[in-house]
């Protein structure tokens, strides 16, 4: 017998799952990504490098800047271009905006209705209007940062290899400093809310992150040995899904906020570090549902770090100069932390700067096996014990804890 879950609501993109029952027991779970394929790697082949980050941004709206920045970094590494600290800080500020926008969307509009028992945030607003408004305020500020750095809220084209089309003004940075301070109170409230919830889902054994907080030159896992994705991560196609599945040394693993906090907590800002320590024991149990608590702590981190960056840039003033980019034959990988985990853009270029090879692996594709493992554990625990409707509800919540982005996961690989 197969229990078919209808397409998930309150996730980005289109996916569903089925539970296979044999002899009265849960035998297997399949996560089926039904979003159509979009062929981004094929799209970029033969393209001039300058246009590529703008195209790659279209992979995902929730985290378009993570795609732009990963793409720009892959291209810069292929050409041997190094950018100065000013440009790095501004890129970081944009990515922080994306964390705020994406985590606030996920926690307040997609997950909170489960916590309070509503089908959506709009209906939840009748009783919990304050909370919904707080979420929208955080989200709007995140988008303000995306607009400032990326050029617009969705799919801006301002982030370029070697720098930016336009640099933010002093007034823009002053606003960032003010607002990030003012919103901190709301983020701390979110941490309290998500710390109260009971754990569910699978317990994670392997965590993978980039070696810096928001990006890196390599990846790291529990042993903290830097590695390239090709050394330890393998992808394979599935017959029932348009998204591929990845394994780390042959096993399922997790990328995302929980992984970042557990492996990189020494890089956190003061208040975020304090909150991490307060909840360390809980987070270290490794239940995927604590990813939501980890995201709430990252809201605090993001606001503190945005304030720090704005202050640094205001103190020293913005130079606003791009680094010249000379195309050459080369190969480069951009590793960025999208809000929902590690994002990889890998390119080879020819001497005129055209793309000859492109491979993109998104966080949801990396988490695919872990989502299935979590669904399996939850279905086994609940089948026959709980009412079928309740079981299905909990399974949907389990998927949601990963903050999956299904549109992003529909990609492809080696050519």
């Amino acid at each position, binding site marked *: 017998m197969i229990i078919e879950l209808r*397409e998930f*609501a*309150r*996730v*980005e*993109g*289109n996916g569903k799952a089925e539970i296979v029952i044999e002899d009265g027991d849960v035998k297997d779970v399949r996560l089926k990504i*039904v*979003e*159509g*394929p*979009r*062929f*981004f*790697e*094929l*799209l970029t082949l*033969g*393209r*001039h490098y300058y*246009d590529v980050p703008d*195209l790659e941004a*279209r*992979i*995902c*709206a*929730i985290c*378009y800047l993570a795609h732009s920045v990963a793409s720009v970094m892959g291209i810069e590494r292929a050409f041997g271009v190094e950018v100065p600290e000013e440009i790095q800080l501004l890129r970081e500020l944009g990515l922080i905006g994306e964390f705020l926008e994406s985590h606030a*969307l996920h926690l307040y*509009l997609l997950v909170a*209705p489960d916590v309070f028992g509503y*089908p*959506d*945030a*709009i209906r939840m*607003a009748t009783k919990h209007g304050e909370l919904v408004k707080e979420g*929208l305020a955080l*989200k709007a500020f995140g988008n303000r940062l995306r607009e400032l750095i990326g*050029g*617009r*809220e*969705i*799919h*801006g*084209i*301002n982030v370029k290899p070697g720098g*930016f*089309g*336009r640099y933010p003004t002093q007034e823009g940075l002053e606003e960032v400093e003010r607002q990030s301070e003012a919103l901190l109170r709301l983020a701390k409230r979110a941490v309290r809310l998500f710390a109260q919830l009971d754990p569910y889902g699978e317990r994670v054994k392997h965590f993978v992150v980039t070696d810096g907080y928001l990006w890196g030159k390599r990846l790291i896992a529990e042993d903290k040995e830097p590695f390239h994705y090709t050394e330890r991560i393998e992808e394979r*196609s599935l*017959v*029932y899904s*348009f998204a591929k599945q990845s394994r780390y040394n042959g096993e399922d693993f997790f990328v995302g906020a929980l992984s970042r906090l557990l492996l990189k907590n020494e890089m956190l800002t003061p208040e975020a570090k304090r909150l991490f320590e307060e909840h360390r024991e809980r987070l270290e149990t490794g239940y995927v549902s604590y990813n939501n608590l980890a995201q709430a702590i990252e809201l605090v981190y993001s606001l503190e770090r945005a304030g720090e960056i704005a202050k640094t840039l205001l103190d020293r003033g913005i130079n606003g100069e791009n680094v010249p980019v000379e195309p050459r034959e080369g190969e480069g990988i951009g590793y960025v932390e999208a809000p929902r985990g590690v994002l990889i853009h890998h390119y080879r270029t020819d001497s005129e700067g055209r793309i000859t090879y492109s491979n993109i692996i998104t966080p949801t594709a990396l988490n695919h096996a872990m989502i299935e493992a979590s669904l399996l554990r939850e279905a086994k625990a609940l089948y026959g014990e709980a009412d079928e409707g309740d079981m299905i509800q909990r399974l949907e919540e389990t998927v949601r804890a990963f903050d999956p*982005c299904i*549109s992003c996961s*529909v*990609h*492809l*690989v080696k*050519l």
Partner: protein
Amino acid sequence: MMGKLKLGVFELTDCGGCALNMLFLYERLFDLLEFYEIGEFHMASSLKTENHYDVAVVTGTVSSHRDLELLKHARNHSNYLIALGTCATHGDVQASVELPIREKLKAVYGDEGNPMKALDSKPVVEYVAVDLAIPGCPYDKNELYQALMDIAKGIDPVRPDYPVCVECKLNEYECVLVKKDLPCLGPITLGGCNAVCIKSGLGCIGCRGPLPGEVNPASEYEILKGKGYDDDYIVRKFKTFARWEP
């Protein structure tokens, strides 16, 4: 006052941005909800009524049989259908990969291909008649807000009919095509975005699709050639978001 209009938001294959952009209306979303009741909006709500919609908003391209069924459902159960975003109106970037679907699938999923059925990505407007098309990758959320408000009040929404250059000039931005020799598609692209990319000092990438009517892509082509861009580069640029024929 009459009852609220029932709104359905249907996502086919896309990046999620068109649905997300509706949530970026923030407080104005609540203003819209004075006139609309949400019957289906899977990114935002678990509720699903599956009957009749006064207004259906469809985003994305038709890239699978599931997409096609969902599109037909939306069309057959709605009075007014809006194709929202460049995927729905012109196919956007995912429709620009010109290989046949079997070859695309083979390139991605290996020799055996993927046994799941996929279709070549095509815009919504190639399959059904639509009442309003709002392009943009992303579309301008103010344009959608105004259109939904107009529909609720029985007014025919305004449709922009001028190129991006008009908004660029109104904002007094420096012409990046003339002054910086950037490959700007502003002269042949439908306006309505407030020239947001030129605001960043960068060229228009044509995300709102071709200006209908008197547009002159041949002349744009000659200008870009004159600036040293090669044929392949220009043709690809023209075909990225919509299928311009130079």
